[in-house]
């Protein structure tokens, strides 16, 4: 392998890694706040890409109908729970959160789609369409079992991923999409050409993770999220509602996943089921980082991207085998690194 090839592979790896990093950060955020390992973030990235492709073509994306259905389902569950608890007064608020906000977002996207707005607006619309999905799924799927053990939440998340793949096929069809590049420029460093898209990906990943860092350290919402992630009961005693913190984490995670979907769509062809591998690779990255550290997750994801890129040079058909086989030794190392006198899990 010459230096040139290595450099190209490295650039490729960094750009993939940066995309995984965004999803990985969302995964860590959500895991620390809700203890849910939200495998479907990858699916949401794919959905964003598919939505953007539909908007590019001036078509109404399937996301609109999906959000509408999920909103109706989430609201009826919430309304049912409220009525049973005799909290009729809270109904309007529930309608606002679960019906009106997602409904309006979906409606805007639905109306604007055929008008073929300029690219920045389309990006915004794609994010608007996808962001409500995860918080709604949270209400439908995870809220009823919020106190379940981590393992059960994981099993549910995996099952949810399969449901989403089916829904993806239903709402987006089987065709793969590749959106137009966001920039066409390129620059050269040490004789290696780096496309503008790659630069954009890396800059976006850095900017978003920096923003998140600032948000966590300097805003009240960020502090509340950190409080919930370190101690749910304690945070609750301080008047922070874990459910709301969870919803915020879902929204932030969705935006991160959405951005990564937008960034990857011009580089790779995305199908309705491409999300699983994106999500899982991000996951591997998050685990390398220990599932609790954001910079760790970002670095881990970067490592996965590089590994994948070099592995695909060696054997393109076995690259996924290599990436996932790698998880086993990493998990062992993580598990040994976090060895402590284990508190027993529940029966």
């Amino acid at each position: 392998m010459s230096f040139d090839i290595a450099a190209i592979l490295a650039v490729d790896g960094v750009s993939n890694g940066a995309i995984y990093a965004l999803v990985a950060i969302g995964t860590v955020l959500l895991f620390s706040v809700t203890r849910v390992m939200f495998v479907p973030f990858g699916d949401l990235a794919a959905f964003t890409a598919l939505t953007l492709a539909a908007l590019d073509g001036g078509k109404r994306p399937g996301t609109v109908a999906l959000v509408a259905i999920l909103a109706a389902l989430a609201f009826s569950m919430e309304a049912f729970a409220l009525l049973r608890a005799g909290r009729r007064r809270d109904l309007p608020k529930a309608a606002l959160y679960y019906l009106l906000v997602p409904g309006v977002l979906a409606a805007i996207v639905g109306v604007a789609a055929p008008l073929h707005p300029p690219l920045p607006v389309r990006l915004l619309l794609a994010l608007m369409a996808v962001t409500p999905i995860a918080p709604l799924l949270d209400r439908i799927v995870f809220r009823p079992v919020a106190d379940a053990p981590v393992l059960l939440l994981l099993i549910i998340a995996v099952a949810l991923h399969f449901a989403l793949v089916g829904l993806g096929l239903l709402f987006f069809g089987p065709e793969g999409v590749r959106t137009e590049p966001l920039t066409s420029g390129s620059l050269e460093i040490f004789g290696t050409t780096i496309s503008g898209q790659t630069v954009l990906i890396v800059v976006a990943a850095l900017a978003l993770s920096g923003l998140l860092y600032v948000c966590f350290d300097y805003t009240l919402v960020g502090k509340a999220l950190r409080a919930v992630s370190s101690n749910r009961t304690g945070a609750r005693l301080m008047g922070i509602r874990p459910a709301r913190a969870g919803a915020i984490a879902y929204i932030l995670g969705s935006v991160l996943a959405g951005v990564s979907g937008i960034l990857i769509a011009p580089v790779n062809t995305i199908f309705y089921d491409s999300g699983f591998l994106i999500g899982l690779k991000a996951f591997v990255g998050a685990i390398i980082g220990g599932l609790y550290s954001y910079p760790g997750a970002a670095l881990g994801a970067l490592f996965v991207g590089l590994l994948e890129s070099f592995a695909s040079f060696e054997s393109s058909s076995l690259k996924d085998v290599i990436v996932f086989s790698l998880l086993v030794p990493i998990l062992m190392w993580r598990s040994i690194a976090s060895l402590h006198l284990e508190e027993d899990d529940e029966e």
Partner: protein
Amino acid sequence: MTRRRKSIAGVLALVALAAAPLFLSSFTISLLDYIGVYALVAIGLALLTGVGGIVSFGQAAFVGVGAYATAWASALAGYSPWVGLALAIVLTCGVAAVLGATTLRLQGHFLSLSTLAWGLAIGFLFGNVEGLGNFSGISSIPPIRIGSLALTESAQIYYLIWGVVAASLVALSNLLNSRAGRAIRALRGGNVLVESLGIDSFRTKLAAFVIAALLAALSGWLYAHMSRFVSPATFDAGMGIEYLMMAMVGGQGSLIGGVVGASIITFLKNSIQDYLPLISPGASGQLEVVAFSAIFILFLQRARRGIVPYIVDRLPKASEPVDESAADLPKRRQPPAGRTILSVDQVVRRFGGLTAVNLVSFEVRAAEILGLIGPNGAGKSTMFNLCTGALPMDSGAIAFAGEPIRRMPQRAIARAGVSRTFQHVKLRPRMSVIDNVLLGAHTRTKAGIAAGMLRLDRSEEASARKEAQAQLQRVGLGDVLFEEAGNLPLGKQRLVEIARALAADPVLLVLDEPAAGLRRNEKMALAELLRSLRADGLTILLVEHDMEFVMSLVDRIVVMDFGSKLCEGLPAEIRADPRVQEAYLGSLA
């Protein structure tokens, strides 16, 4: 259900199964074939996940290894399917042993994630290996032949499949009622208890893991020769979660639940395939997986424990009587009174910057009760964990019966004769009281997995049961042998822990706050029990808060404060010591 009733139900089920091909259409029989093939995997998962608490997403990969092994051997290399069977078993169990050896030390969700990872990796591998037909798979696999009979019809292989299912059920249910099986049942709920009983938790997990893989290999072998075709899609991650679903729907901790789960899921899938096109023609394939996942999520939200336990709870409980005529288990000879049993010498343990135990030394002598007391945060529990090997020490030395224990794992210390109880009671609440106590006798018995499956362990088992009953009677619980341990009140649960510790025939009994949460008369009964144990030559180290309880019971006392030993002496001396009063009540200045 008693054993007898269980056998009757089993025989009836067998007769019904054997007669089924006479009554049912060939379509239904082939559906039953599939159910049997899936059920094998689900039974393995019921053992691994339901009983042992190890959640595996990767069983489909093991099925795949088995199926591809036999497909390669019989269709490509031209060997008999029976050679394929041998290859399938050896290869699958080998892969499982290697994977298990590397991953089973992982904790909780890390372990499950690793099963997802290697499940995916193996799944991708099938589709990318030239010699295994890449994504198109291997076709024209020959049927299994028994003598001159080729099992080509679905009604023929039906008997083989369900024969294997029935045999697996019998073998595994025997296993669960044996020494090795109890160790697997004890896994769910954490390693701390398991290791303290002298059980090697890692090897127990590995055994359960390989057994589950073996069943998956059998399933893969049967599948390959039943459908005569294998391709990667059958063994992907989606199928892995489907198997998990079967085991969980059937029921946690129930082997028959694997069969029930496989039946329900397969029939459900079949009817979804039948009805969805009516609701939404053209989109049925996609809706199928959505409907399926939705049902599974709903199930996990509403009825996590599964179907079979729900029914079993409503049936009369099993109570196989204890055989009073069984031989006694061998007992160890207790050391002569007064000899030093445990010596703690200048022991230090730090947690980060905090020195929880600082240069503490004391001795425990045979046939005495030594009380270890001190205010909250004095380091008693840490000291306790150091003595039992649950925590490693930073410096100093602890010797048990003259042997330094520094490098011994907790289970080796347990085997040497240290039995403990826990401050927060650690029983297996869904196991019966006598089974909990039998766990204590693990180190005194030998029967392995094969002996358990084939019921060759019966005489030893009878002896162990007699011993467990005797210890329960000794602590006054002779009347609740077959209750679920979790249903007892806290006071009785503490006594079950003591009976379990006694069943190990210990030299040193280490009790962590045994009187906490007990009522006054329960405390008095407990003190009486401990005195009688001392009279029998047992040595007891007691960590306790309750002063009255300690003062009236123990021979000597060691007082700890802020991680250091404050003083040591007879109860009366300790009571009079101003330093102790100051530690407990604060300075009187």
